[in-house]
């Protein structure tokens, strides 16, 4: 009986954990994706300022504290890096290059949550 209870408890913990993790990561990256998209539009219009990038960076820094628990830290570092480069390029008003950096950020915010979904390519 003890064994059955322990197995069922472990399965429940894992299923609940997986659901919470999946939803949490998706929500965080959806919000980030929205912010990156707005930043992209502003850079495209050449109206973006360093302040806009720092606002996104601030949002990312808040999110990354909790994301560290679920995502390999190397992937988090990548976003840090691209965001920092975007800030420098916006400050120097190098719009074309800044656009390409934000493009990568948008792509990362879409791709990272996908690596946590149940799919054949992720399992194998």
């Amino acid at each position, binding site marked *: 009986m003890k*064994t059955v209870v322990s*197995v069922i408890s472990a399965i429940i913990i*894992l299923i609940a*954990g997986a659901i919470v993790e999946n939803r949490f990561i998706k929500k965080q990256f959806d919000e980030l994706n929205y912010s990156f998209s707005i930043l992209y539009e502003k850079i495209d219009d050449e109206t973006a300022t360093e302040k806009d990038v720092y606002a996104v960076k601030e949002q990312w820094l808040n999110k990354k504290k909790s994301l560290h*628990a679920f995502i390999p830290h190397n992937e988090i570092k990548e976003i840090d890096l691209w965001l920092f480069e975007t800030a420098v390029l916006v400050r120097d008003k190098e719009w074309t290059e800044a656009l390409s950096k934000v493009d990568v950020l948008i792509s990362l915010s879409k791709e990272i949550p996908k690596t946590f979904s149940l799919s054949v390519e992720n*399992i194998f």
Partner: protein
Amino acid sequence: MAVIFIRTLIIYLTLTVVIRFLGKRQIGEMQPFEFIVTLIIADLACVPMSDVSIPLVYGIVSILALFIMHQLFFLLERRGNFFKKILSGKPSIVIDKDGVCIAELKKNNLGVDDLIESMRSQGYFSLDAVDYAIFEANGKLSALERTDYKAEKTSIPLLLINEGRIDKSNADKLQITEEMLKEFLEKNDCSLSKTEIMTVDGNGRVYFQKYKEKYKILFFELKEGVEF
């Protein structure tokens, strides 16, 4: 989390199948599914512990997945002989009253030398010291001693012929030449290819088993000065 869980399950199941096919030699007093947990749990715990770039939750999920699989296998094994046979295998009788059962040894990827080694660790130095020897599902050897075994004085027997092949290093130790051996076999109406097992101890006492025949205890006249 779900991806890691499923990946761990796949690896666990693959290892269980492989360990079952590897036979009893690879297992040290554990059931195969217990052996696998022991084998990989340390690594699972160590990697996220030492590599700070990997979230701790990855290690925890894998360990929980292993725990679930182990407990499920444990429950299945207790449900009856069918599952027990599939998951852990069954005991193999490797020595009976007729002698060594080579086929059973082969089924478990074991050789006569492995059997002799396991018997020595149980305190039996001669193949005829026991009436029955059984390799349990966990790889441990259990033996039923022959009642009159202790009354016989023997020295350590060496494996001289193993499935028709001469062990030359043991033959050298006993100073037995190929000619002497062939002469001995002819005298006993046998040939090298028909001999399944032959051990000789320092007193010249021979455990002799032809293919598909009951073993015999014979005597081999060793050269003077051979001490073993």
